[in-house]
């Protein structure tokens, strides 16, 4: 009785009017789609920026006509300047890490499906939820403004290392207002993420339907829940860091700026700060952020694999505990970004061991996925292809972590393309494979229409092969000492290797263009796709027990009761080889063995 009353306290009236329905909606499903749309806008912007950078790097004198219209200073005559390359690099990283990898797998899908999967009508705090999205939106607008101010975007990279980022216009183009916009944008983003994380945690703990014990929650809900706990601690540290950065820039404080610096022939009016403080604060956020990006995808992939294999994982409990230990360890490893930063070399040892230790839960997860495939009845579709691709990419990006976790090797590989290859594969591509898998899997639920399977498969092949072609060569180039964040390599030992960079650029152009297939599929299927049934994948979790798309209050005012965990596949159920979570029927093993 008490549970029901808690749930009813959060019910809001059906939305009325265009604004309340589609813009300032309190409905977690609309908010989830809004996050998805924002991530989509950000990912295509970020991708085009990477195209421009790749083209400039291998053909430094190439004229890109539209670029001059976009930025006269950055590309006079259409030829990109070295500093504009750095501006684009900063914006690419910031957009991708914050507005894509945090928004899409976590905020977008989490918002849409977490409440439904636990049987709730909405989030615990719908108004907070609306605020988190619109605050994120403001953060995005503030960041994008940097493109349109005369100064241009900042050139200090997405990590905005101080004192370069803290001293203002003396540090170079983009560092006057561009860098301030960056700091303000990220501070706002932190507030939004904190609101969102709190909401996810409260919803998961308070609004579960009757019978939905924690261990009966689907693995993706678990992943979103663990991610929220990580995000709560991580963004709570990045937020003050950004505030201190803004104060250094505009209020004359010296948190990150030591005395005696002469920049652009001017003795800086600061003293007493520490550049390493910024690095510690930033990476205390920055490393957990990697797991904020990848954990939701691990959950989504596990959820989809179970469905595609038509049998449970070897152990869902082990998957949950592994994700928890990854989350816990993620706070003890930030120093591995700083092995050669000048911090005490002894602490490098202290950070190296936990970093290497993370490999253990990550390997457990991989072995569980692989072992579960054995003896399954694997169904191949776009969603499961991307889920399988995720495993491949996660391993490919993960093994290079072995190298970088060791200070003695990092001393050589730090700041080379080896690092670029590593984090793009594991944090970028693997995480996005989770998002793609989730999109193909849940699109029917979200829109009531199926996506085109042939186009989805075409998208998979282009992306899967393309991503390997782009990011594998980066590791090799790193081995010969190819330094990152250089706009071109025209006059040094890299000259004989430029063929590889050209190969990567061409692969990036093709793979990027391949994403248009996805975009087309998304838009076409939204309007013309085959109508979807309630449960097109014969899945067990609660989102498949309601109409596609779900009504505004999810369960039509009813309170679902949960009888099973979501892994009842390969059994004799009344509807086939599965039993849904809210079905009271007894589960009978299918093969009788």
């Amino acid at each position: 009785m008490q549970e029901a009353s808690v749930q009813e306290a959060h019910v809001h009236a059906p939305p009325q009017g265009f604004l309340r329905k589609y813009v300032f909606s309190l409905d977690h499903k609309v908010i989830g789609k809004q996050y998805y749309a924002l991530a989509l806008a950000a990912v295509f912007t970020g991708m085009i920026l990477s195209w421009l950078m790749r083209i400039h790097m291998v053909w430094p004198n190439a004229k890109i006509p539209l670029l001059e219209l976009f930025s006269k200073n950055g590309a006079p005559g259409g030829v990109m300047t070295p500093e504009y390359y750095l501006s684009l690099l900063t914006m690419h990283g910031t957009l991708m890490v914050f507005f894509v990898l945090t928004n899409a797998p976590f905020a977008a899908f989490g918002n849409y499906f977490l409440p439904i999967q636990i049987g709730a009508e909405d989030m615990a705090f719908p108004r907070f939820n609306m605020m988190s999205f619109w605050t994120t939106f403001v953060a995005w607008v503030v960041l994008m403004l940097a493109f349109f101010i005369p100064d241009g975007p900042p050139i200090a990279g997405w990590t905005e290392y101080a004192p370069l980022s803290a001293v203002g216009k003396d540090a170079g183009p983009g560092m006057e207002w561009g860098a301030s916009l960056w700091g303000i944008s990220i501070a706002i983003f932190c507030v939004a993420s904190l609101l969102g994380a709190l909401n996810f945690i409260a919803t998961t703990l308070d609004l579960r339907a009757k019978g939905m014990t924690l261990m009966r929650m689907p693995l993706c809900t678990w992943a979103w829940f663990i991610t929220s706990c990580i995000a709560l601690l991580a963004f709570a540290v990045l937020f003050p860091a950004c505030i201190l950065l803004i104060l250094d820039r505009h209020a004359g404080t010296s948190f990150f700026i030591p005395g005696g610096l002469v920049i652009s022939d001017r003795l800086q009016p600061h003293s007493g700060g520490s550049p390493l403080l910024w690095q510690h604060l930033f990476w205390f956020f920055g490393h957990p952020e990697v797991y904020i990006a990848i954990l939701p995808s691990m959950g989504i992939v596990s959820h989809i694999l179970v469905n595609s294999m038509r049998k449970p994982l070897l152990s869902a409990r082990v998957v949950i505990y592994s994700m928890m230990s990854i989350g816990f360890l993620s706070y003890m490893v930030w120093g591995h970004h700083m092995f050669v930063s000048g911090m005490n070399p002894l602490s490098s040892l202290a950070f190296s061991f936990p970093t290497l230790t993370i490999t253990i839960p990550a390997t457990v997860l991989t072995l569980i996925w692989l072992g579960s495939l054995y003896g399954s009845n694997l169904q191949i579709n776009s969603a499961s292809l991307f889920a399988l691709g995720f495993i491949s990419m996660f391993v490919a990006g993960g093994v290079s972590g072995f190298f970088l976790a060791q200070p003695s090797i990092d001393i050589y590989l730090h700041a080379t393309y080896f690092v670029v290859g590593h984090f793009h594969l594991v944090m970028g591509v693997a995480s996005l494979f989770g998002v793609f898998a989730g999109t193909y899997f849940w699109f029917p639920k979200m829109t009531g229409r199926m996506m085109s399977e042939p186009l989805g498969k075409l998208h998979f092949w282009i992306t899967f092969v393309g991503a390997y072609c782009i990011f594998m060569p980066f590791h090799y180039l790193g081995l010969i000492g190819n330094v990152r964040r250089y706009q071109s390599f025209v006059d040094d030992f890299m000259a004989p290797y430029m063929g590889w960079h050209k190969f990567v650029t061409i692969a990036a152009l093709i793979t990027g263009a391949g994403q248009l297939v996805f975009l087309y599929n998304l838009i076409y299927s939204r309007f013309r796709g085959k109508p979807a049934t309630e449960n097109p994948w014969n899945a067990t979790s609660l989102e498949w027990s309601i109409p596609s798309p779900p009504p505004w209050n999810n369960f039509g005012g009813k309170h679902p009761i949960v009888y099973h965990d979501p892994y009842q596949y390969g059994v004799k159920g009344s509807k086939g080889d599965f039993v849904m979570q809210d079905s009271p029927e007894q589960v009978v093993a299918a093969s009788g063995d």
Partner: protein
Amino acid sequence: MGKLLAIVLVVIAVLSAYPIVTHMFVLPEDISTHGRAIDQQLHDTMLEAGLSFVGAQIVLAVFVWGFTNRKEGSPLKSFPGGAKVAVIAAFVLVGTEVLALGVMGQKAWAQVYFTSPKPNALQVQVQAEQFAYYFRYAGPDGKFGLIHPDKIDEGNQNYFGLDPANEVEARDDIVSGELVVPVNREVQLLMHAKDVGHSFYVRELRLQQDFVPGLDLSLHFTATKIGKYEIVCTQLCGLGHYNMKAYLNVMSEADYEKWLKEQAAQ
């Protein structure tokens, strides 16, 4: 399509390993005394990481090949041993791997950072600034003049902000745009940043160390081969970052002394 995925996975695993196995990309020649341990560590890690990568891709391929589009009614099977095997394998295999790599790697790290420079090491002060390096030798008196940031005057080539008018120690300091060192003699770098963060990276020395504004760091090495090697900045330092480089010039002891005399005469 499962079979196609399996084939592609194997092809990717083989193609990815090919450039490594055939040594298409090799590290530049090592010219340091500590580099051998780093190279060995990298080699061992490559072996373990490479085997894990290829092994996992092939297992994934085999399972995808074997368990897609199975005949109607084929019974589901469970991996023998289940989750327990996965957990034990991860702890035992990866745990030992990680411990072994971690412990062995510390030795290589210790060679660079946990040994003090010998008392007779050649001290050179390096100043990194947007977008150049300057190297200062103490001169015959063996003492460096102090740095006065307010006296820095690039136009008059006073890059370090020295005050020779008032300080005797600063008068014989030698400032060079190239790091000239004698072969087989230990060098201690005193690293100073003038403006923002920079880095000192010499591939052949297997050395990389950031310059931290406000925090002067010490780094030591011994170069074992005569030649000219590139020093590049690896810490994003502003618009000319890609252009920030200098050279390490390793000379015979005699050539080095000669160079020093020439510089002092200027």
